């Protein structure tokens, strides 16, 4: 796509951020162009071509733009710049470094470099001269915030190459030549530590993409215990506003077992991004003992930033994720919220006067979403190492209606569904994931089941299923009680209901703002689940339904105190003893 003579054009029409440009040469779909408005260049992307008219979506406000303004086409699609120094950065949707921008307000056409070109990196070669390498092959390594950042053969390179020379261990800047490769035709190609990649294309620098087989620990009990997500898996969290989507997403990104966290704040509240900016640099990373921010990259396109860049932001995040996955790292990618991205597509489709699908969304919405989710996954790299991108997106269904197009399309693409329930949120039962409606397809994977029996315990899955049954039976019992009245049903109905409440209060509900309760290790989850199920299996002698209520409330209270105590600490054990004393008093002889 590189052309010698760049195509130019002139603005011929303006409708909000949709601009029509009359061009004098070839243009490509999704090609990037710059419109020269007064002294600033406004970046835009081609989204439709009709004859000599290129329809472009401008990533900035078009205020003041005039007919006849010149535009230059760049000959490539929207690209990310990949190299050491991405971690702990705050980017906008187009990968501009937000921290190096001047002033309080975002200025149009203020495009900043994603990387620091002056930083010296300690480079260590991994490949030897004479090695045969293909795209994604590891040439060397630098230490990026204690992460082994691999310098690779650029993803754009096709075919195989022979390494002619590579620099010695030492300090280099990102733009320094670190290797020379020879292609199949015998031409020398210079390689630096920086490469570019078009965001809308999937990086395919891996050998194989197996089915995910390993659960990813998130520390959130209702996920890990009942509906686990797999490493390299996909999940989505739909929920009406106010049901705690963002709190849940933040909790997962803080705690999940990942090397790299990429957060795409897509069309959401600026204050939520500020919360990440403020908290993550302070939070200790339990895995490395360093700060969480050091392994996190944030792509922030908040709801008041230009709409077209919102669409780009999720792709930018995914491409960065793929880059780190190719280094053999475990990446957790969070997008909040994919509905805003879909709305950006809708706004543009509307301006293009395309025939709309349901709720005025574009017809190919479902295909676009599936395609995006399919870029996540667990991979075996060409050198036998493994890497993964686990992707969790939130969906903000209009009116809380889960039948709307974005939720429906995402349901087809994602393997885990964590439905947030308004009723649970209203009664402050957080996280408000409805454990009965939610599902994880991974629980059905034999690979995952095998992993559990080998690594957690061989009775684990059995217990999970029992817990799910108790929840379901409890819900039914509750409905019966509501219809027939407290004394219109057998005491066993009350027991059934309170058994499910016990699981709800002790396992499902979790205090994201408590330093201990917020994150639970799988070991502790296994212990607590066994403990709770133990109570549900006991037979008690209740004379009256009110006894059931009082008894379980006391039990729950003690369990909660346990949740608030360090695992197996003296305090924890003290409550455990109290608990056993309490229920042994009520045991049926």
């Amino acid at each position, binding site marked *: 796509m590189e052309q010698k003579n760049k195509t130019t054009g002139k603005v011929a029409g*303006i409708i909000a951020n949709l601009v029509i440009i009359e061009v004098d040469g070839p243009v490509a779909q999704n090609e990037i162009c710059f419109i020269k408005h007064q002294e600033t260049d406004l970046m835009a992307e081609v989204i439709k071509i009709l004859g000599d008219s290129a329809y472009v979506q401008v990533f900035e406000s078009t205020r003041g733009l*005039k007919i006849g303004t010149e535009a230059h086409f760049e000959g490539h699609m929207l690209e990310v710049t990949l190299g050491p120094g991405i971690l702990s950065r705050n980017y906008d949707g187009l990968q501009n470094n937000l921290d190096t921008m001047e002033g309080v307000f975002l200025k149009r056409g203020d495009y900043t470099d994603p990387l620091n070109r002056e930083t010296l990196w300690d480079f260590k070669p991994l490949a030897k001269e004479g090695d045969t390498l293909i795209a994604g092959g590891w040439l060397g390594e630098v230490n990026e915030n204690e992460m082994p950042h691999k310098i690779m053969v650029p993803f754009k390179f096709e075919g195989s190459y022979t390494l002619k020379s590579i620099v010695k261990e030492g300090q280099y800047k990102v733009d320094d030549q670190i290797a020379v490769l020879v292609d199949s035709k015998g031409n020398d190609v210079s390689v630096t530590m920086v490469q570019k990649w078009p965001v809308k294309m999937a990086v395919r620098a891996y050998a194989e993409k197996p089915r995910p087989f390993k659960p990813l620990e998130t520390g959130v009990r209702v996920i890990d215990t009942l509906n686990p997500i797999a490493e390299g898996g996909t999940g989505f969290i739909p929920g009406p506003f106010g049901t705690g989507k963002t709190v849940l997403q933040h909790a997962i990104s803080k705690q999940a077992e990942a090397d790299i966290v990429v957060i795409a704040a897509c069309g959401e509240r600026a204050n939520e991004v500020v919360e990440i900016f403020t908290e993550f640099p302070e939070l200790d990373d339990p895995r490395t003992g360093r700060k969480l921010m050091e392994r996190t990259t944030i792509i922030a396109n908040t*709801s008041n930033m230009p709409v077209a860049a919102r669409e780009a932001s999720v792709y930018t995040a995914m491409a960065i994720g793929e880059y780190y996955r190719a280094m053999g790292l475990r990446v957790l990618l969070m997008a909040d919220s994919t509905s805003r991205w879909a709305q950006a597509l809708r706004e543009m489709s509307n301006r293009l006067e395309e025939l709309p699908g349901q709720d005025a969304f574009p017809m190919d919405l479902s295909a676009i979403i599936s395609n995006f989710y399919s870029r996540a996954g667990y991979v075996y790299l060409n050198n036998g190492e493994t890497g993964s991108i686990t992707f969790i997106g939130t969906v903000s269904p*209009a*009116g809380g209606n889960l039948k709307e197009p974005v939720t429906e399309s995402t349901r087809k693409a994602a393997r885990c569904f964590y439905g947030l329930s308004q009723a649970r949120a209203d*009664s402050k039962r957080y996280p408000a994931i409805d454990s009965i409606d939610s599902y994880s397809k991974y629980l059905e994977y034999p690979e995952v089941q095998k992993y559990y029996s080998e690594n957690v315990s061989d009775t684990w899955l059995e217990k999970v299923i029992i817990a799910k049954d108790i929840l379901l039976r409890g819900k039914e019992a509750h409905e019966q009680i509501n219809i027939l009245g407290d004394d219109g049903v057998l005491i066993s109905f009350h027991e059934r209901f309170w058994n499910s409440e016990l699981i709800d209060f002790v396992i499902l509900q979790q205090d994201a703002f408590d330093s201990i309760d917020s994150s639970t290790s799988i070991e502790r989850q296994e212990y607590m689940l066994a403990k709770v199920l133990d109570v549900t299996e006991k037979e008690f002698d209740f004379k009256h339904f009110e006894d059931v209520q009082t008894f379980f*409330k006391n039990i729950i209270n003690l369990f909660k*105190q346990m949740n608030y105590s360090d695992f197996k600490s003296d305090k924890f054990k003290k409550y455990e003893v109290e608990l056993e004393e309490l229920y042994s008093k009520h045991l049926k002889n």
Partner: protein
Amino acid sequence: MEKQAFQKVYAKITNITKATVQLKAQGVGYDEIAMVHGRLGQVVKIIGENVTLQVFSGTEGIPTNAEVIFMGHPPRLKVSDQLAGRFFNAYGEPIDGGPEVEGEIRDIGSPSVNPVRRAQPSQLIATGIAGIDLNNSLVTGQKIPFFADPDQPYNQVMANVALRAEADKIILGGMGLSNDDYLFFKNVFDNAGALDRIISFVNTTENPPVERLLVPDMALTAAEYFAVDKNEKVLVLLTDMTLFADALSIVSNRMDQIPSKDSMPGSLYSDLARIYEKAVQFPSGGSITIIAVTTLSGGDITHAIPDNTGYITEGQLFLRRDTDIGKVIVDPFRSLSRLKQLVIGTQTRPDHPQVMNAAIRLYADAANAKTKMENGFDLTDYDERTMVFAKEYSDKLLAIDVNVDTEVMLDISWKLFQDNFTKAEVGIKQEFMDKHWKKE
């Protein structure tokens, strides 16, 4: 908006619709304003030489040979300290009979704040209303609407909040405000002796609806002046945002755009976000806090306007008439302030979060008990006690006429707990129990 030298004047309009006119013109910038037959218009579409203008006050009576003068800039406001205490219309022109404001000219609808230049909202705004301070504390830099039925006293509550909050400036953006409500605000602010820190931009029901579209941007441009240039704490009141959104749908409809849900434009989310996201806390201490009103039709929050608003704002406040006590209360179930976590328990007493949650849980139990009673079932002793608690809680804390300090609210809550429940039923962390549960 006077004529100036060297402005191109056109006098041939080709198309006229209810809200737009189209003409052939050159050198016109997007978003630029123009005077069309003496009325203000704004460029919304340019295709080649054809320029489409949206005329804010409607096109009634505009002839095809009307004079069109392009001003060469987007809508603007003059900002300076002289704004304080004044009343303006949607165009920023004084309506209080006072002189023109002198000051720096600023374009309205300016760019957003770079998110990395924001500070985390951290300053509690005390209102004395327990339904807000105890359960849904507000924080500077927050944006939160009242979701209210048209017959609820939302403007009164909002005026109370505005006056009790320690803001340096209060900016009222009134959209489709009835003349009575406009005078209500004027009187309340006047009687409180607060007029000199109040600035109002008002579009009443007597003015054309599309003019309303300018009101939030005018109010927020003024707010940004005081928050950024003067480092002041600014509180912006926007009422009623539903009427603003209705004006958006009128315009998009007349521009032949394909409507999405509830005949609202597909860009509704972005349009509302652009306004609400102006709420900000600056590291320098200046802040803009937005309290808005979104009226509901029949309490339906799934309608596109409240629904999109809910996804943008940091919570929402619901008012409800509690028939048991005959007062309007702040509904503890449906109301939510997302930023309360940043201040409760740290800027307020440490037991605040747990007391708040326990009280709401018990209040929910009372609601269940009430349903049981209405369905003719026997109540347990616990049910009876929750209902006693709920009534007291509603009356002493949730009612909008409450005006006490947060510490007092917490003490009242503890007393209600102790009067009605056992420790296990309340279920609060032991350390707080030890401290606040009075020994028998």
